[in-house]
């Protein structure tokens, strides 16, 4: 399944022009605040301060059981009735909270003020607050803002909003600077390191990642910068980078062997890497990755899968499950379908795949129950109830917390889907 030939499959076979079922109703999805859970681990000297309600604080600590961290680099400034009634000036209160926070955590270099549903509804201007606080705390701490509110962002769109807030401040390169490659989207450090080795083997040395691991090390960009999106949910970040002259390299996403190869190929082509060099660079990892995936394929081939909308990773994941594990796609739901960024992915999806965008969870559950798929990919609120109905499930949030990109994670990714089925086969209780 590693052949490059498949990547150039005829467009007519894909889902580029396939109809999409658009639904509106109850959406069983997280809001953008949830992204803080992995973003705060990624940028090691950044702190995320949600300006919101007790619900926001409760969401973040409940969403992923993140209380494993004693004192994480995120917190909530909980708005109370005094702020709402105008008894206290919300901006003064925010300054007080931030001052206390920075005193406690002097190692913080970058502070994100993260807007929430209530802060948006009461129109608290966090961008002005960020500018004001940045001036006060400069140069020790830079303060940025973005919205992770549920009224504006769905789950992974929070990462998009966060990365987008970094773009205006990225150092500028000029037209005279050498071409460089920018990989956009938070990846596990281990994945970044693997990719860096692959790019190095291809002869690409000028490669950087957004976000960087340290606030002070964010990459420089300019008209000779080419970007590869590592995640399919970065619409706004990509738009702002393009505005600053960065060229997007269209590609599938680096999930599975095929996706990873095509993704790397896009960079190789753009930077004029010779095909022998490229093939030599990927030979060993793609071979061992394919072999590992093949071991999982035997048990997954022919099994049907139904995906509820969650992270916008659904389309690339469905492509991987269909083409590398030979699974049958029943319905692939996604919260938002970005046709441009997903064009290469849609081309690769089996023709006739049922796609849905948005959600009416009750109706989608009706369809799911009627279809009786072998595996359902869904959020934590639905997983146990579906299991209790006898339907195997894979929690989708794990796809965000686990390193799944690249050759050496392709089998891990396959395993994530296989494990619920393996487990069901084992159990005799």
């Amino acid at each position, binding site marked *: 399944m590693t052949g490059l030939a498949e990547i150039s499959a005829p467009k007519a076979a894909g889902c580029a022009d396939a109809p999409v079922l658009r639904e509106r109703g109850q959406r069983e999805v997280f809001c953008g605040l*949830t992204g803080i859970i992995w973003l705060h681990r990624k940028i090691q000297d950044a702190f995320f301060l949600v300006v919101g309600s*007790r619900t926001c604080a409760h969401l973040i600590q409940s969403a992923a059981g993140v209380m494993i961290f004693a004192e994480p680099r995120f917190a909530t400034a909980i708005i109370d009735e005094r702020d*709402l009634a105008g008894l206290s000036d919300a901006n003064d209160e925010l300054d007080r909270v931030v001052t206390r926070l920075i005193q406690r955590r002097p190692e913080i270099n970058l502070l994100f003020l993260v807007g929430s549903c209530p802060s948006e509804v009461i129109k608290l201007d966090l961008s002005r607050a960020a500018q004001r606080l940045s001036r006060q705390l400069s140069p020790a701490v830079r303060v940025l803002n973005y919205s992770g509110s549920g*009224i504006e962002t769905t789950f992974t769109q929070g990462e998009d909003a966060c990365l987008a807030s970094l773009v205006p401040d990225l150092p500028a390169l000029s037209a005279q600077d050498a071409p460089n490659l920018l990989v956009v989207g938070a990846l596990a450090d281990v994945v970044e390191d693997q990719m860096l080795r692959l790019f190095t083997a291809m002869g690409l040395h000028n490669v950087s990642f957004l976000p960087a691991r340290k606030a002070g090390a964010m990459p420089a960009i300019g008209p000779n910068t080419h970007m590869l999106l590592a995640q399919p949910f970065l619409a706004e970040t990509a738009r702002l980078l393009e505005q600053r002259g960065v060229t997007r390299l269209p590609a599938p996403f680096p999930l599975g062997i095929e996706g990873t190869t095509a993704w790397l190929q896009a960079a190789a082509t753009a930077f004029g890497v010779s095909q022998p060099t490229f093939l030599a660079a990927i030979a060993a990892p793609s071979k061992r990755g394919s072999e590992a995936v093949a071991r999982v394929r035997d048990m997954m081939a022919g099994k049907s899968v139904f995906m509820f909308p969650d992270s916008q990773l659904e389309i690339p994941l469905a492509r991987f499950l269909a083409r590398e594990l030979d699974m049958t796609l029943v319905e692939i739901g996604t919260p938002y379908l970005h046709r441009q960024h997903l064009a290469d992915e849609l081309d690769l999806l089996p023709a006739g795949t049922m796609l849905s965008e948005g959600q009416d969870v009750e109706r989608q559950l009706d369809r799911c129950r009627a279809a009786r798929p072998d595996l359902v990919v869904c959020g*934590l609120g639905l997983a146990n109830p579906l299991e209790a109905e006898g339907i195997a499930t894979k929690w989708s949030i794990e796809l965000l917390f686990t390193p799944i990109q690249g050759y050496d994670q392709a089998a891990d990714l396959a395993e994530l889907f296989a494990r619920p089925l393996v487990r069901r086969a084992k159990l005799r209780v």
Partner: protein
Amino acid sequence: MQLTLWTYEGPPHVGAMRVATGMKGLHYVLHAPQGDTYADLLFTMIERRSERPPVTYTTFQARDLGSDTADLFQTAVRDSYERFKPEALLVGASCTAELIQDDPGGLARALNLPVPVVAVELPAYQKKENWGAAETFYRLVRAFAQPVERTKSARPRCNILGPTALGFRHRDDLREISGLLGQMGIDINVTAPLTAAPSDLARLADADFNVVLYPEIAGITATYLTKTFGQPATKIVPIGVGATRDFIAEVAALAGVDAAGVLADSHSHMPWYARSVDSNYLTGKRVYVFGDATHVIAAARIAQTELGFTVVGMGTYSREFAREVREAAKLYDVEALITDDYLDVEEQVASLNPELVLGSQMERHIAKRLGVPCAMISAPMHVQDFPARYAPQMGFEGANVIFDSWVHPLMMGLEEHLLGMFREDTEFSHAPSHLGAAPQAAPSSTESPVPAALHEADVAVLDAPGAPGWTADAEKELGKIPFFVRGKARRNTERFARDRGVALITVDTIYDAKSHFSR
């Protein structure tokens, strides 16, 4: 604005969800933005419920604001009724919907659905989860409880009030107390919210009295029922052997039954275990207690009077019950800490240096970091605090469970001596096998598990000019002290030396300090 790292309680609408999810035949339509559906996973993941909570969310987005959020809400109510056909609907708003002021109650009633609609207003910017649960339960009881013609029965009859979904051991407490009441010859009329339908609430008045298991949730409802139907309510929460006996006496008086038989035949192992010689080593163990008011008050009594511990500090995040906890704290000569800021609790635990912490999931974190054993007594909790086995906190079996779960994290009986005897053996390395790893050393990574404030304090002590040094002999002597008290011995000795301006700690200093700090 309040800077919050972790929150003990969720927002009040989560309390309403706990009531609705515990009940049957009730559907809750919550006006809430996209994302608030996270609350479902509290029930499906943490409590491992096999069904989704009976809650429909409007999940409005920015594009809906200002145009048709009211319409969206009405559609959600109508669709929920059609799909779930509940006996009654509960409607309300989460924090964001409260700001857009759509009036869920009015909108739902305007639909003229053929079932009752109960609206709850839960001020999300003032109140929290337990208050929300209490208010919701009260509103439901007010809406449904009717005067009834009392059923004739030879046996006295009561209602059990308070247990909800996602409660700390509510399921098992309910079974234990139901059994106890049965043994006393008392019938149970209605149990609510857990297991009750709105139609069950309608017949609450057909009971002689109410048993209130969790005052945080059922207190105001019980008061209402006393005023409205003249039903007295229990005041004692049966957690611990003593409290269970008091509860039995209280119930017997309310029901007019003889409690002697139940008291004589309690099948409780706990009093004997507490008196057995091995438990001598529990004497005077310094414990810190924090959690919701009901469980803290009960735990402090058990700790002090039934296990022979010494309560060195206690507190609660239940501000509504601050007075009761303050009163209870006086019994142990400590001042109650009333706070919902987990950093305050952490600071107090660190400064009191207890040997056991009894608390919630938050205190478990604090204790783990400080290397102190911990047992769970209260929400908030983790998935592991919904055990598969029967593990009540209430009644005589609850007391047995409490004995085990509090004592097992500690060094038991003769082990303290055996450790001393065998510690020079090459085969002996760490803690006895039934205990986990030794206290964690402070890691040096940037993600310090120790809050910066504490960290700085430690560093300041170690680096302070004139900080006492240790002679080689003194270090060696310190090494002979069992590992689980060594850290404390080092800190106490250094504090003692610093207070007296001793620059170099000798073997004598160690024993002077030991004598000074011995309690």
